[in-house]
């Protein structure tokens, strides 16, 4: 059942790599779309078979692999991973759809896209630490290639930076997993919080610290966020969609599943500090976004801010907060993907993303009115406007965290207010005013009114419209997603109590 979620994309990649002859770009794109469509359809089948009332791992599959290492092929899905699998399925499809003007090596490009999708699925479904790590690393190299080969002018720098940061993150995570096995003396890498209970608090804190930094790089949290803006600015639009929408979620998923899930006791000790860290990350990301001139960098920094909410929710670890974290992952996935898509359209039509150069793009005849309208919707969703996905997620995160960490939560809310500031700057500068695509420093040139941007074809906006519909749908009817994840997230919050009870022998 779940293995098909891996087999479809990996098989698709293999199929494309071995496709006989010299197929056209269009043919390869079609094959990719079919494969990714199948993958999404199969995720929906999994959704249909999933029982939301059950908080345990479901549809488990397991296969002995390398017993001596403790490496087991074991998959399972619960309310935390299923929404992310769905997001992965839809966003990879979106990013394949919006790949049109690819100039070099389309075969490799599309194959890598499918490999990433499969690896991400694997990481979300893996029930074995080593297996998770394998998939976590597997996604790294293809993404590096996607940035380094198909990226912008300064792509080498950005790709290398991305590679080094994420590789360090991988080392730390692997180190923590191995350390756990060594210190407990068993080569059992299955996912249980019980394992960590045998360790002293010092050892737990050490391992948790390594994991925190490791996943903190991936999320990214201040001060490990440095690779993200560069990677985004150099990556092409579809890659940015994937990176922001799906790959960052690996970090937050890791925080919830491995940090909170495996070290509940140590987590509870560190939580107050983590809440402050989250608030700093939120404020730093938001303030830095205000100062950006490049639209893509601005959206990238907004990711830093918005992912901070998830750490805050994880630190509070109340049922509402953790459910809010799942909501935030899904809604950030959709919203940031939407924003990157729209920025991509603007870039393609005007050749620039510079906010000091773009003006008045909402112009109804010669500008990009529809893209602009969707952009307004996207930034409002990101700023937490009710009726869209961002609001209900942020509300739940704040509502779940305020009793535990009032100060950090209030500061994070300030960050949410700052989101409105920078995104309003973006819309006001680039979309309002008189249409012009020149720096405003030169009034003579700026006075030219003969800008005539190419019309945006409906097929270019269809993926963005689909995402926008998703954002509004979750905002108006959050109950579906809530039902899907509630049992699992509530179960996660009981881990600290469970662990404490175990420690005292209460459950024995």
């Amino acid at each position, binding site marked *: 059942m779940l293995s098909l979620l891996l087999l479809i994309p990996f098989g698709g990649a293999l199929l494309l790599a071995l496709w006989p002859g010299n197929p056209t770009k269009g043919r390869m794109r079609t094959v990719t779309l079919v494969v990714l469509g199948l993958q999404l359809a199969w995720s929906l089948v999994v959704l249909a078979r999933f029982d939301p009332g059950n908080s345990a791992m479901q549809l488990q599959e397991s296969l002995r692999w390398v017993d001596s290492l403790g490496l087991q092929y074991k998959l399972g899905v619960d309310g935390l991973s299923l929404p992310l699998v769905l997001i992965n399925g839809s966003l990879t499809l979106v990013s394949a759809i919006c790949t049109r003007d690819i100039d070099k090596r389309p075969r490799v490009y599309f194959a890598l896209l499918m490999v990433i999708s499969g690896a991400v699925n694997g990481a979300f479904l893996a029930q074995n630490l080593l297996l998770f790590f394998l998939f976590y690393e597997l996604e790294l190299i293809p993404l590096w290639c996607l940035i380094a080969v198909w990226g912008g002018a300064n792509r080498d720098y950005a790709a290398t930076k991305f590679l080094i940061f994420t590789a360090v993150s991988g080392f730390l995570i692997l180190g923590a997993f191995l350390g756990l096995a060594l210190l407990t003396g068993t080569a059992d890498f299955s996912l249980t919080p019980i394992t960590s209970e045998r360790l002293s608090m010092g050892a737990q804190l050490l391992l948790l610290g390594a994991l925190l930094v490791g996943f903190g790089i991936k999320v990214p949290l201040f001060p490990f966020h440095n690779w993200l803006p560069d990677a985004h600015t150099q990556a092409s639009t579809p890659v940015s969609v994937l990176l922001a929408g799906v790959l960052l979620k690996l970090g937050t998923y890791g925080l919830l599943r491995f940090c909170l899930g495996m070290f509940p006791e140590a987590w509870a000790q560190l939580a107050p500090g983590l809440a402050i860290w989250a608030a700093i990350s939120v404020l730093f990301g938001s303030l830095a976004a*205000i100062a950006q001139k490049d639209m893509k960098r601005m959206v990238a920094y907004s990711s830093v801010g918005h992912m901070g909410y998830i750490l805050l929710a994880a630190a509070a670890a109340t049922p509402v907060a953790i459910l809010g974290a799942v909501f935030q992952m899904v809604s950030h996935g959709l919203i940031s993907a939407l924003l990157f898509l729209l920025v991509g359209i603007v870039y393609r039509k005007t050749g620039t993303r510079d906010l000091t150069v773009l003006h008045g793009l909402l112009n109804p005849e010669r500008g990009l009115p529809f893209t602009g309208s969707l952009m307004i919707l996207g930034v409002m969703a990101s700023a937490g406007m009710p009726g869209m996905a961002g609001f209900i997620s942020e509300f739940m995160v704040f509502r779940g965290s305020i009793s535990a960490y009032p100060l950090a939560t209030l500061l994070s809310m300030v960050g949410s*207010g700052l989101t409105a500031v920078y995104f309003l700057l973006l819309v006001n500068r680039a979309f309002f005013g008189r249409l012009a695509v020149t720096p405003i420093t030169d009034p003579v040139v700026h006075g030219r009114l003969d800008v005539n941007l190419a019309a945006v074809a409906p097929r270019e906006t269809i993926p963005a419209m689909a995402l926008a519909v998703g954002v509004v749908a979750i905002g108006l009817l959050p109950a579906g997603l809530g039902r899907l994840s509630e049992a699992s997230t*509530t179960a996660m919050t009981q881990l600290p109590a469970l662990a404490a009870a175990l420690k005292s022998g209460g459950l024995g």
Partner: protein
Amino acid sequence: MVWLIPLYGFSGMVLSLPWAAGWIKRNGPRPAAYLNLLVTLVAVAHSSLILQQVWQIGPQHLDFAWFRAADLNLRIGFDLSLTNLAALELVTGISLLGQVYALGYLDKEWSLARFYALVGFFEGALAGVVLSSSLFMSYFLLEMLTLSTYLLVGFWYAQPLVVTAARDAFLTKRVGDVLLLMGMVALSAWAGSMEFQDLYVWAAEADASGALSPLAGTLLGLGLIAGPMGKCAQFPMHLWLDEAMEGPNPASILRNSVVVTAGALVLMKVMPLLRFSPLATTVLLVVGTISALAGALVAIAQVDIKRAFSYSTTSYLGLVFIAIALQQPAIALLLLFAHGLAKALVFMSVGSIIATTNCQDLTELGGLGSRMPATTTAYLVGGAGLVGLLPLGCFWCFGLLVESFAPQQPFFAAVCLLTNGLTAFNLTRVYRHVFLGPPMPKTKRAPEVNWLMALPMVSLTVLVALIPALMARFNPVPSIGSIPWTVTAAVLASGLAGVAGGALAPLNKFWSRSMIQPLRVLQDLLASDFYTDRIYKATIVAAVAGLARLTNWVDQALVNGLVNGIGRLSLASAEGLKLGVSGQVQTYVLTVIVAIVLLLISLQWLQV
């Protein structure tokens, strides 16, 4: 079926989308307007029907589950009390009149469909706010109002002033909303339920048991009043309403009458929760007083005809704030109702003037009185309805306010009287500028407006003239005789003094800035709204911008610099090291073995 009422507005928005997005280009955007008018008409009819029913069977409560997870239970609730339904009637009615009016006012506007889509959204959110029975839903819809205000103010987004106006409207309200969100999230965590009734019960219990620390209570109170303060354009968050006058006039009609009313209604609903926070009540009083007086004064110094009345809205809502803070919600409601209708009428006549003359500058207008009789009548009736002089709506409000404040809080009674006088002064001044005097170049050819604008204007004129009768039906108002004659005399005197002052004050179209130095300084101070925008620019805006630059510098110079430094260092050391490599395989193997041994030893040590 009452849940349909907010949906009418939203459905109007959805129905307009095909034209607004340009998917249907044939026959122009008018069908979108007609569809919106139709659904608004249905909304008016439906709300009247429900008002009739509730009148007979008493208040009702309706609610639906929306979302529940763990201990969070969010519901959609409607409180069908007479007050809420009367407010709903006001909202839908003024929205209908405004939409008919807009059809005439925006006659040649190319994006008419977009306007109607936004107005539909606006109306739906407003209808929801006045009916909502929970703080969560009120917040939800208030934010939607913020968004639709932003889009309506930014309707003509190609103009530079509109761009800044829309930005300021959004950000000012957003500041209020974020503070309200903080209050709401805290309340949700403490009290559990978000229904106003449950919150009142919780507040009474928490107050009795002292469960809430004074600091938390005060912060909660301040958070809760911040949202309505932003919505009602109270000092110091009033700037947006003035700038919002850059938007199309039909939206200004709605904004100055019903949006501010919705904000004040939310304040009334959270009022019982402010019992923890004496400071919040004090803040309300201070803010209300400053807004009432400063708003009225600033209005007098404006030369833009729309701004002259938008500041007066700030001023009246200041009075409403005072009334709410002094526990006179009934009078506050009455004032909101009377002010809402009268202000809408004044804005309709202002819109007619602008549509006919294409001019908003008072010093370029004159002599319209004989040329535009319906507009003149509307202005006069609206103006009379706003001040306490003739026995129209606001006369009773001022009378009741003064009567209830005078024994205990004479200061606030004086504030009311002063506001009344200043408003009368402003209205008379504007009347002289616009309708009297010789015609100016821009007003020589000034026919009366087309029927689409005249019809709603005249209907509203009749309605405003009938306000006392309406008030007598809904909310038994004492007859003139029952208000003490001293109060009547005081209100009349303040109104008369204002009119006389306005009639006698020197008005010079060519030297609109006074030539007497002290007066000129005062006039400049008021005309530029106490330089509020500059103060903001120098403080908050500068602070945020500075912080952003500082953060960016930290990010680029420190964090990024460190990363790049490490990168360069490792490259440089590699360059250095490559010269020191021996090339002998044996040494490599030895190194590797030593390293492995060390690693294993360290592991042994760790395990022990």
